[in-house]
């Protein structure tokens, strides 16, 4: 196959404002506005996120038991994460203790979500930039182009294993998308031995596919000097932030349960908290030009869109998790984690990895971990036990946190004595990452666009700065004319359109 196309030829623009806008998305899409100064250099950039209206009001007064199936409607992409966070919140609200079987089934289900989500992101969204190149023609730079480049058999393996992740969720959760099995203190559905064996077989195959994906990442990305140059360039995809993620008692990554650990720019632990303490740690900043709030570390404070120890901006998701953990509990993921650390240390990195494109590497390591953990759980014959529901008490207030594929996800509900919801607050992963992803866009835009010279490839490289966060700002909307196509509009100063660049 031909090599990836990494650069294209920029042309001079006389405009002051450049918009990268996924126009066909109805609502919930992100839009990047880049403002140039008189010399054609980037003055500032904004990642704007419209938001759905009225969700909290919609939930108040409903029975809290409805919330695991209502909150997961926020999103057609990661409903499983909302369902898990919500059932954990109900555990807290009802002072319920899930049985060991229920905990295993919940985690097994969740590994299915990770397998599906990380495969979809890596192959459908990230791979076009790596396999075809960030400056490849836009009509080729998509998942279909990736299949043309890598071949139909590999493409078929990709959709097969993503589908395995969905099937595991369907078996355990009742439905692959928008599951219905979470209850306070447990789950609603026992699984059969036949179902367990089926999941075990699928998990074995996913472990092999994880190995394949890691090798592909090494062959296509790390072995390419131009990509490595992009990854390690401190002027483009690089932010020295705090990091946040869930860990077990040994500081190994855990997606389902544990403490939330926050480390600073040198890797030192600055806080470790239980879900109920999140309001002591996180505060939210509001900007007038966007609907989404920007969480930051309360004790450090909000200093604007800058990195460094004095700025409370933190990052979550695969890069956040890999920077707060000391490894993984499964052998193949741990092995690749060690390769990851050794590689970055050979490049002079001592503590956390601040290189934003390393999100992709962390994501494929997590795919391997999720597949291995899925196999561990599906191989455990005790998961077919009928002991799937623990005791619970009168409802009150509670917080539940899990690691969504995109990062730390927080649900917080309060209930009256009849179980009716009186308060709801949610901080979703992409919100946690919002300030950081906006800062990444500003930095990438400033380093990519100089003297008014722009091109589709350059603008795609700016977009890569936020795409690696796997942002999920939509949470709910889509329609037939939907789909995240992109259009860059270059406007005259008074706002009229001079020219359009489309990637579809």
């Amino acid at each position, binding site marked *: 196959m031909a090599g990836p196309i990494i650069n294209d030829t920029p042309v001079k623009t006389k405009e002051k404002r450049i918009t990268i806008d996924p126009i066909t998305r109805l609502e919930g899409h992100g839009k990047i506005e880049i403002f140039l100064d008189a010399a054609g250099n980037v003055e500032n950039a904004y990642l704007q996120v419209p938001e759905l209206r009225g969700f909290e009001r919609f939930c108040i007064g409903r029975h809290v038991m409805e919330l695991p199936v209502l909150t997961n409607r926020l999103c057609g992409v990661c409903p499983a994460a909302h369902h898990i966070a919500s059932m954990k919140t109900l555990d807290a609200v009802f002072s319920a203790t899930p049985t060991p079987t229920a905990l295993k089934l919940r985690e097994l289900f969740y590994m299915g979500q990770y397998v599906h989500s990380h495969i979809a992101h890596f192959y459908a969204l990230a791979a076009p930039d790596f396999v075809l190149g960030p400056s490849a023609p836009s*009509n080729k730079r998509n998942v279909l182009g990736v299949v043309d480049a890598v071949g139909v058999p590999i493409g078929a393996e990709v959709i097969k294993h993503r589908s395995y992740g*969905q099937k595991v969720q369907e078996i355990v959760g009742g439905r692959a998308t928008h599951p219905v099995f979470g209850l306070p203190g447990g789950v609603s559905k026992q699984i059969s031995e036949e179902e367990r064996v089926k999941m075990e077989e699928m998990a074995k195959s996913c472990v092999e596919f994880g190995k394949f994906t890691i090798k592909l990442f090494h062959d296509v990305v790390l072995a390419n000097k131009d990509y490595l140059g992009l990854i390690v360039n401190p002027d483009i995809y690089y932010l020295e932030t705090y990091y946040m993620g869930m860990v077990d008692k040994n500081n190994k990554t855990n997606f389902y349960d544990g403490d939330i650990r926050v480390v600073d720019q040198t890797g030192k632990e600055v806080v470790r908290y239980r879900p109920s303490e999140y309001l002591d740690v996180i505060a939210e900043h509001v900007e007038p030009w966007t609907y989404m709030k920007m969480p930051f570390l309360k004790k450090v404070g909000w200093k604007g869109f800058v990195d460094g120890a004095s700025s409370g901006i933190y990052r979550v998701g695969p890069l956040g998790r890999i920077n707060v953990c000391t490894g993984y509990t499964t052998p193949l993921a741990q092995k690749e984690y060690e390769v990851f650390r050794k590689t970055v240390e050979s490049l002079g990195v001592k503590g956390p990895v601040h290189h934003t494109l390393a999100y992709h590497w962390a994501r494929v390591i997590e795919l391997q971990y999720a597949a291995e953990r899925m196999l561990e759980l599906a191989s455990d014959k005790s998961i077919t036990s009928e002991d799937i529901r623990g005791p619970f008490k009168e409802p009150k207030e509670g917080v539940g946190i899990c690691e969504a594929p995109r990062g730390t996800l927080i649900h917080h509900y309060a209930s009256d004595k009849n179980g009716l919801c009186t308060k709801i607050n949610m901080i979703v992963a992409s919100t946690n990452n919002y300030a950081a992803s906006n800062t990444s866009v500003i930095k990438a835009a400033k380093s990519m666009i100089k003297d008014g010279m722009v091109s589709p490839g350059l603008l795609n490289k700016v977009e890569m700065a936020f795409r690696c966060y796997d*942002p999920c700002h939509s949470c709910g909307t*889509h*329609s*037939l004319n939907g789909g995240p196509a992109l259009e860059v509009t270059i406007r005259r100063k008074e706002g009229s359109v001079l020219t359009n660049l489309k990637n579809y």
Partner: protein
Amino acid sequence: MRILVVGVGNPILSDDGVGIHVARILRDRHLKGVEVEELPASGLELLDMVLGYERVIIVDAIQTKSVEAGTLHRLKEEDFERTIHGSSPHGINIATALALGRKLVPEKMPKEVLFFAVEADDVVNVSENLTPKVADALPEILKAIEQELR
């Protein structure tokens, strides 16, 4: 012949959920030889769902903003070719997912995929109800789909 009707949309997002509303009504009518599914997602999830069927009708919301809310647009797979897109911030759309299926597993793909797209008014406010114009158009939309299925 295996026929599937898929209602796509978010049932708590006003008119975005029109496909789900239609699917629920059609399911209750127990049309012979027709299976009905709800899909509160899109893209690759839709691909999983349509494999193995010979004919698929997808009902979803659309906003062209060129016609009255509630107007039904009948579209074919090839009408979406121009929306098969390049890089994306998140997810792939239905057209791209179907094109991917035709490339990777052509033998399992439906011979025909039709789209019944309903012009939506509100897809922003959280509500389980359709807006009045879309709700009023439901009987005609259902009639058109049932005629297609005959």
